[in-house]
């Protein structure tokens, strides 16, 4: 059956478009575009507001390091915060002015939580810092990429991934094709569309730079067929660039998703566990490419972006907005919000989110702001049970089974959800869009994903804690062993030197008597130490017997913890034969003691009690043992506490 379908589709595809075919992906939906409202007017430049609030977190990755102080005057384009770590992006002053505050402010994020921001009071001069254009054609690629790191440019399609990471010029990746994402598939959003209509030439020059940086052979611009003006403009501009083409793809959400777009224009299906760069493709958004052009050719870092202000406003339009501009300024410039506006959505209606308040700044991620009314976006009716109609599965661009994922997520069966490839879900919202039961499916997936990630993290932490504890215990044992060894050495050398001493002669009986206790308390570690000590003692004794050393014995030989060691050295001086016999006896005694200790230990372990001989051990050893026991117990509890249901 499948073979027939495949054959039929090949037949149809082959006849329809030949080599220039668009490679369709599974599913997708056709939401009403709602783009015409904001494309009637050209892009307008928004006036410099009275206050700019620049969140440090405007990109994916680490927050940058603040380089300015409150009260400092800064120039437009001056770096306010420097990228720290690999995955980070710099923040620049969008205009000249004074740093008014460095404080926590509400940022445009679904959480509605405040985060560190730099507040700038513009002076109205809009005075640029000294710009340093780069002659990119005649500059080393590594230098260019390093320079890009301080450009503050991030993916402007909404992902805000630091751009310099995507153009690593370390020669490791071999990119053959640069795909320019101009699909702009979400309804309402028109910032890329307008940018292409008005600044196609600059975009194409930016493409040239990126193509050069990546070392790509060809470049394809993917545009949805609902943007004919942009397509014409880009096609015209692309003539200036060799091996570059514009590919018109059918309007089908989510064709702007990078993996979907690559499949559409190239027919390459990127394996789920790989990145596009692994197959030699890199994707850039049109606005990002333009920002790169401006950075290299004019030296201008990322200070503004195009934002679509649409929905329930009087004059929907695209604006060139300085980062940090209060949302209110943007709304006012667009003629103000109409009556009935309840809230504002950042991003498109498929993947955007409710802004927590109107008092948020425009950031690098803000491609579109929609003034929402209940008329435009009706609150969803109460969810009904899933009727397994599988419309969601038909709509899923990843070809997942959303109804199964929903079932598993709802019942907290996260392992099953993972098995059914929950993490391949791109949260595009197609499933919710077509659900007859109005089930907020994507929310379930977000929940399940966050739960799985949290559990994984907890597990990782517990594993780490366990590992650390095991390492610590091992270290303690090792240190003890080393200490024992040192003692043994010291004792052995002392004995060897003072072999003839009478006081020490008395030692054999005492030491052998003590041997069991000492050996058992110290356990295996001691055993090894003993063996080593014996060897060394033997060697030393041999040396002493040659008569080369006739010194007086050193004092303080017997140590309670190491009392077994000196034993072997005794009497050996008087008679080699005798000594040999004595040594054998002692070794036997030691072995026996060790055996006893082992047996005792085993019995104790089986009975679940502390070894009895602990009572006989020296205070130092006892302390050490109890310390180890406490650590073990703590480790056990810590692991249990951090991972309470790991057994479940």
């Amino acid at each position, binding site marked *: 059956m499948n073979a027939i379908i495949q054959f039929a589709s090949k037949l149809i595809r082959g006849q329809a478009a030949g080599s220039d075919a668009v490679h369709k992906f599974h599913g997708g939906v056709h939401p009403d575009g709602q783009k015409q409202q904001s494309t009637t007017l050209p892009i307008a430049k928004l006036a410099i507001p009275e206050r700019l609030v620049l969140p440090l977190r405007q990109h994916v990755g680490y927050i940058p390091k603040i380089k300015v102080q409150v009260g400092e005057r800064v120039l437009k384009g001056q770096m306010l915060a420097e990228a720290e770590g690999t995955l980070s992006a710099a923040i620049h002053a969008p205009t000249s002015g004074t740093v008014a505050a460095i404080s926590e402010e509400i940022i445009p994020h679904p959480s509605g939580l405040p985060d560190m921001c730099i507040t700038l009071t513009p002076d109205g001069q809009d005075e640029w810092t000294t710009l340093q254009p780069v002659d990119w054609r005649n500059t080393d690629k590594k230098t260019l990429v390093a320079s890009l790191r301080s450009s503050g440019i991030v993916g402007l399609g909404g992902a805000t991934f630091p751009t310099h990471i995507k153009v690593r010029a370390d020669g490791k990746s071999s990119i053959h094709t640069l795909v320019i994402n101009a699909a702009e598939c979400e309804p309402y959003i028109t910032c890329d569309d307008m940018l292409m209509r008005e600044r196609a030439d600059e975009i194409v020059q930016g493409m040239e730079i990126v193509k050069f940086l990546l070392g790509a052979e060809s470049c394809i611009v993917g545009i949805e067929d609902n943007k004919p003006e942009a397509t014409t403009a880009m096609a015209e501009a692309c003539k200036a660039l060799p091996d570059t083409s514009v590919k018109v793809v059918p309007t089908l959400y989510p064709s702007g998703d990078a993996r979907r777009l690559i499949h559409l224009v190239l027919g390459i299906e990127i394996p789920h566990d790989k990145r596009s760069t692994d197959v030699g493709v890199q994707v850039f958004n049109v606005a990002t490419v333009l920002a790169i052009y401006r950075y290299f050719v004019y030296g201008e870092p990322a200070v503004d972006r195009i934002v679509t202000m649409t929905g329930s406003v009087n004059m929907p339009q695209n604006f060139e907005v300085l980062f940090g501009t209060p949302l209110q300024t943007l709304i006012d410039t667009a003629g103000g919000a109409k009556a009935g506006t309840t809230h504002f959505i950042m991003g498109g209606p*498929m*993947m955007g989110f409710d802004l927590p308040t109107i008092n948020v700044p425009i950031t690098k991620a803000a491609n579109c702001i929609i003034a929402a009314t209940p008329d435009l976006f009706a609150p969803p009716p*109460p969810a009904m*049970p899933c*009727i397994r109609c599988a419309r969601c599965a038909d709509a899923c661009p*990843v070809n997942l*089974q959303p109804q199964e994922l929903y079932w598993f997520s709802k019942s907290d069966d996260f392992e099953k959800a993972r098995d059914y490839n929950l993490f391949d879900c791109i949260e595009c919202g197609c499933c919710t869009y*077509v659900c007859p039961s109005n089930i907020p499916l994507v*929310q379930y997936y977000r929940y399940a994903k966050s739960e799985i990630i949290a559990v994984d993290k907890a597990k990782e932490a517990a594993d780490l804690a366990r590992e650390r504890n095991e390492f610590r215990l091992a270290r303690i044992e090792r240190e003890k062993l080393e200490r024992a060894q040192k003692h043994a050495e010291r004792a052995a050398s002392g004995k060897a030197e003072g072999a003839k001493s009478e006081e020490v002669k008395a030692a054999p009986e005492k030491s052998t008597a003590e041997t069991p206790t000492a050996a058992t308390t110290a356990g295996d570690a001691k055993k090894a130490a003993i063996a080593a000590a014996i060897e060394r003692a033997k060697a030393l004794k041999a040396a002493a017997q040659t008569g080369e050393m006739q010194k007086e014995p050193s004092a303080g030989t017997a140590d309670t913890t190491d009392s077994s060691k000196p034993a072997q050295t005794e009497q050996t001086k008087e008679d080699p034969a005798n000594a040999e016999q004595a040594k054998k006896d002692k070794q036997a005694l030691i072995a026996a003691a060790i055996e006893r200790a082992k047996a005792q230990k085993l019995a104790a372990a089986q009975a679940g009690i502390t070894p009895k001989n602990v009572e006989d051990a020296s205070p130092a050893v006892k302390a050490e043992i109890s310390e180890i026991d406490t650590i073990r117990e703590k480790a056990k509890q810590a692991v249990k506490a951090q991972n309470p249901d790991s057994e479940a």
Partner: protein
Amino acid sequence: MNRSPYITDAPTVSIIMLKVLLALVPGIFAYAWIYGGGILVTISLATITALVAEAALLKLRQRPIRPYLSDLSAVVTAWLLALALPPLAPWWLVVVGTFFAIVIAKQLYGGLGYNPFNPAMVGYAVLLISFPIIMTKWPAPLILAQTKLGFMDQLQFIFSNALPANVKIDAVTSATPLDYLKTQLMLKHEVYGITQAPIFGVWGAKGGEFVTAAYLLGGLYLLQQRIISWHLPTAFLATLAAMSLAFYTISPAHFANPLFHLMSGASMLCAFFIITDPISGPTTPRGKLYFAAGVAILTYLIRVYGGYPDGVAFAVLLMNMCVPLIDAHTQPRVFGHTKN
């Protein structure tokens, strides 16, 4: 909060169910025309029983009543069961069957979306096992009946099991073609001779084939409206045709031709309305093909070799049991993954 997407474009469950009911209307009209207006009474009776039972159970289960009653799923179950019953089924049979379908097969399993078995088919199977004689006693189409019962006569028969004076029950009933074919074949008659009987029409049962054709019409409407996917009816009808063609080719004297199987009994109702119940059916495209093919094979085998006149109900219930297995083993390839 992130609660996107903000926009949706989906028919509600109520709309979907309403379209299913709408698609049944041509079939009901044909039915009433062929067998008399009694079916309208049966359908009304089943509908009322279903709604009352559903409301009562929702109340017992402390669920909101209005949204669940207005989803119309109970009405769909009622109509399908009513259409599957013999046209002049006594009122209590309709009530018992519908009650069982809604209460046991649907609500006790958790209500809408949670029933593993097709409720209408559960109700039908229970009645068939419990009351086999009534369930196999089909009235003759009006065009064939020696005595034509009027609407009021049918009403009276349904509610008080009383026929007009001087009318014997045999005068209004007759064997169904599927049943007749089976018994005659057992008597060593050959298909060609058997189908010369007046109860046989051009394709299937005389009169009944129009009802079947009306179901097909309704089914095509559902396909056009994208309420059902093509996989289920196509696979069902194709498999049933292939199966009967194979047997027919081997021995035309002992096996009816494919067209007869497609146009007889509950074939069309099953293809477009019964196996297309999404809740008790599989969700994957490949799974739907397997499921429908399985129902078709079982239907054919029960029809030809089983003890019941038609095999749809048991075939569907048996395949319902296999749904979790089918779904688990027919997961489509996820984008960017190699075959599982």
